[in-house]
Structure formats: C-alpha cells, structure tokens
C-alpha cells in the first residue's frame, strides 16, 4: 500500500528540488545579469511590458540558447512556476496509485485549471 506519509515525503522532496534548481539557475542568471548590466540603473517606474521574446516558453528558450541573462532568469522563473504544477501532477499520480479516485479527479481538476492559465493567451 502506498501510504499518505510516503506520498507526502516524495511530494516534499519534489517541491524542494524544484525550488533549489530554480533558485540556483536564477542566481547564475543574476550574476550574469549584474556583469552585463550592473553599471546601468534599470527603471521599473513606468510600465511598458516586457518584450514579447521573454513572454513565451519558446521565446525564453531561444534567449537562453543565445546566452541572454534575461532569458536564463526567465527560464528559472518558468521552473519556479512549474514546481507547484509538478506537485499537482504528482498528486494525480499518488492518489491514483492509492486508488483514491475522488481525489485523483480533484487533483486532475486543479491540474486542468493550472494548464488553462499556462496556455498561450495570444
């Protein structure tokens, strides 16, 4: 039997891994960012929206491959956002393994809502 405790332990591990990977990457991107733009003072006083190139998964990936510091930071942001999503996906798997169908359906519903938010809203 796949116990609640076992599932919770694995869930905790998954969350920690996601945050550690995202923060490490963010730190690396941050160092690169400071090296490149450390001298200038970027202003966030006026909202103009970030360029479209760092608003989608495909765009961010292109920036990362080009070695852009902003792209690396945005990739770490994507991993950060993906961490709770993976946790929900893991809950779907966990409850299904427990044959706890009601909560498998509950977790699937949450996953569906999250997927809706992450879809490209052109």
């Amino acid at each position, binding site marked *: 039997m796949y116990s609640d405790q076992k599932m919770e*332990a694995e869930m905790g591990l998954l969350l920690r891994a996601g945050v550690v990977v995202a923060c490490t990457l963010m730190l690396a991107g941050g160092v690169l960012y400071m090296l490149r733009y450390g001298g200038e003072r*970027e202003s966030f006083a006026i909202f103009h929206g970030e*360029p479209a190139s*760092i608003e989608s998964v495909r765009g961010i990936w292109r920036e990362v491959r080009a070695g852009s510091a902003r792209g690396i*930071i945005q990739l770490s942001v994507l991993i950060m956002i993906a961490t709770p999503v993976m946790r929900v996906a893991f809950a779907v798997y966990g409850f299904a393994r427990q044959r706890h169908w*009601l909560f498998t359906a509950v977790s699937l519903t*949450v996953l569906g809502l999250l997927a809706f938010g992450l879809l490209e809203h052109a």
Partner: protein
Amino acid sequence: MAGFVGSLTGLGGGVVIIPLLTIAFGVDIRYAIGASLVSVIATSSGAASAYVREGYSNVRVGMLLEIATSAGALAGAAIAAHVPTSALAILLGVVLLFSVFAPAHPDDGKNSAPADTDSLGAKLLLNSEYPGPNGNISYSVKRVPLGFGIMGVAGMLSGLLGIGSGAVKVLAMDLAMGLPFKVSTTTSNFMIGVTAAASAGIYLQRGYIAPGLAMPVTLGVVAGSLAGARLLATAPSHHLRTLFKAVILALGVEMIYNGWAGRI
C-alpha cells in the same frame, strides 16, 4: 536594493513586497505584482516541502480547496488587466489592514471532539491527524462549502494582486472549517504556490515579470525567509511581531491613500 527589500519581507510575503516596491522605490505596481508572484511561489514551495514531510499540512484538504483558489486566481488575473491600478492599490491596502487585524490565535485542542461521520468532511475523507507534543492529535473538518467559498475569494485576491493571501486562507480553514491553527497555517502555505502558479502564467505572458526585478526580489525573499526562520527562533518574537504589525499598518494606510489620490 530590491533584494534587500525582499529579504526584509521574507517574514511577510507578497502583501508587504508590493507596497514596499511601489511606495519606497517607485516601481510600477504591475511590475511589483509580477515580481511578488514569483517570490511567493518560491517561499511557499520551499516552506511547504518541510511542512508536508512533517505531516502538518492536510494534503487532501489542500487539494480540494485548490480547485477554488486556482479558479479564483484565474478569474482575478483575467479581470486585473481591466482594473485601474489605483483600485488595485486601494484593495491591497485593505488586505494589508485585514492581515493585521485578522484573528491569529493558536488555539489548538478546540477540535478534539470525535469526528461527525455524517458531515461532508467525513464523507470526503478529509479528517486527519497531526503531530502534537504527546503523539498525534486527530481532528475533523467542518463547513466544507463555506471554506470552499472563502477560498475562491482568497484565490481571486491572489490573482488580482499577486499575493499569496495567506491570511484569508488561514481564516477559511481556522475559523470556517475548524482546522487546528498549525494545520491551517501549514496547509495555507502548501496551497499558496499552486494559487500563485495559476495566475503567474498569465502575468508572464502579459509582460509583468521583469527579470531585472523578479531576480533580486525572489532571491532576497528566499534568503530573508531562511534568515527570518532563524531569527524568529532566537529573537524575542513578540516585539518583532508588534513592530512588524505597525509597519504593515502604515503600509496599508499609505497604499489606500496613494490609491485614493490617484498616485499609483
């Protein structure tokens, strides 16, 4: 600078980051919301990883209520673009004031009564137990529909303002559903990451998440929450809390005033 702000607010979360960034540093509230969302996911997931393993969070209650919070967050994020930023500022101020005055009293033991097997909470197998000083303490879950409704509001606030709305979540579980305080706070923390992730994708695509701001804020908040946990363990936390409440109160009033005056 933003990292320093973040580390100071590791104790408070998004509800403190946004007013600090907008009032003290003149950051546009939309960039502040984007940066706050990312940091909220980081601290929530980091802290939740420990609480879940220690058996405090009620994963089932969390999952069920996440339907309400993530649906609310999607709705909140969808309408946020059509709400004037001054109205967002005022709303955030109100939430700040609420989080100061919200009842937060660890009154464990109120829920040791045997579980009512007819309730919806029992039918959904939500009742559980958590580690106490003398072994596990069992508790039952009451008024599920009411808690679900309040969670929808919490999710909507989270999606509108880019905060975790932990205070509202604790209210729903502690007061409405009768969960023990420790379970309410840790389960609230567990849910915050998912709630924030629901709207973060929308905000990312809207260009609210600026890497140059989100990076120092998030790293600062993570560092601050690690340091804060240690500080709270050693420092006389009573004075710290009083000071913290005064700061939040001042920020709340300032946000409402600035929003009213149309400065944000």
